[in-house]
């Protein structure tokens, strides 16, 4: 049994062999082997009393700062004996697992958060790539749209298209819908806004091509007043501009 004895002044008078093994050799007073946070809990029992008491207390281990123990304390002839039994290792292991789990949860949470941020950035980049601004000549530019026409994507595209229009002097800007899939209403409205902004900037209507029958229906449904010129193909336009 690991046990120690102490007197009314808190001076340690005896340390059992097992106790030395757990707590170290050179203990002189109680604070040497009881954690400061556990001291108040022990306080009422540090003067002689009848009977005995059992408490959960953090001892200060030789190689463990906190050695959680079940402590049994009793007084006899002005000497107290503390028998202490370190808490089940199993419980320690469980505790450690719990902590590890919590930490994992927290870090996964954080990683997920960072992944989400990275993903959002990637989507933005992808969106920008889904509507590249391609100058064909000094006067003419071509913007093929890829994938679904969504609000988010159109916003990203609006950004760089307007920048490019602003920098150049393009009279004719062609948008191509051949490679697009689903058209969302909000996406189309954004696209329409972009077209009118371009018209304010260069004075010319945007030309739209690659309009499939399904697109035409959506254009009508979502934006009946969609005021654009449409062209059959890039080839036709190029032919017209360079006779």
């Amino acid at each position, binding site marked *: 049994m690991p046990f120690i004895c102490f007197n009314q002044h808190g001076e340690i008078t005896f340390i059992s062999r097992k106790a030395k093994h757990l707590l170290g050799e050179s203990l002189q007073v109680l604070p040497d082997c009881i954690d400061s946070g556990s001291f108040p809990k022990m306080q009422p029992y540090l003067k002689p009393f009848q009977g005995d008491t059992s408490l*959960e207390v953090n001892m200060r281990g030789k190689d463990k700062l906190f050695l959680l123990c079940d402590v049994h304390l009793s007084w006899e002839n002005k000497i107290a004996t503390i028998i202490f039994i370190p808490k089940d290792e199993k419980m320690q292991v469980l505790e450690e697992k719990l902590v590890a789990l*919590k930490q994992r949860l927290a870090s996964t949470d954080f990683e997920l958060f960072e992944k989400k941020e990275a993903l959002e950035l990637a989507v933005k980049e992808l969106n920008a790539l889904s509507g590249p601004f391609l100058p064909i000549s000094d006067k003419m530019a071509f913007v093929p749209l890829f994938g679904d026409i969504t609000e988010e994507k159109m916003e990203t595209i609006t950004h760089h298209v307007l920048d490019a229009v602003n920098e150049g002097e393009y009279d004719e800007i062609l948008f191509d819908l051949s490679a697009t899939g689903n058209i969302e209403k909000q996406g189309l409205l954004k696209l329409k806004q972009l077209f009118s902004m371009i018209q304010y900037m260069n004075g010319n209507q945007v030309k739209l091509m690659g309009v499939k029958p399904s697109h035409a229906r959506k254009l009508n449904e979502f934006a009946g007043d969609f005021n654009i010129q449409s062209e059959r193909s890039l080839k036709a336009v190029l032919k017209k501009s360079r006779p």
Partner: protein
Amino acid sequence: MPRTKGGKLARFFLDGDAAGAISFIREQPSQEWIYLYQDLFTEAMYEIGALWERNEISVADEHLATGVCDYVMSRLFQLPENKEADKRAMFLCLEGEQHYLGLKMVNHLFEERGWETKYFGSSLPLEYAYATANKWQPDVIGLSVSIVYHLPQLKKYVEQLAVLPHRPVILVGGRLAGQYDLVQYTSGKCTVLNNLIQMEYWLKTFSDERISSSR
């Protein structure tokens, strides 16, 4: 039957009754987070510490209560989509320190007041803290410490983080903040805040100074 609100909440935590805890909190006349955290959650956890000292519960019970408390906080604290934040703060516990609940509250309150934050919770080694802070450049780094043996670490953390090139403000809180003169201990390189009311006051002064210096 516990008489204080903190005591009642502690009961729910110890019974593992998250649903009970949630409705108890929802019933409170004030739903302000700073008040809920200071007067209910913190009090409940302190009460749990007192119950342990009175030998009425064990450390195993504290673990359960901590889990429930954390869950309830995470469930109830939801922020509307973040507006553009212009102030950054990161929060961490010193290496080895597992008492993170207080820090989590502080992190929530900063977020609620429009800060962008990174919250690392318990036990973040100094090298990581330093590297992240150097890269992300937070205006404020908040440290939390509860265990006495971690005080020497605190000195190291404060000394290293305070001299980062962008000179962040180092805030220190936690159980020990009110018990020792940590400012002197860290050679005056940090600001010590004992509780959430002090934190709120500090935040207000910080923003006021910001506004007047940007004019």
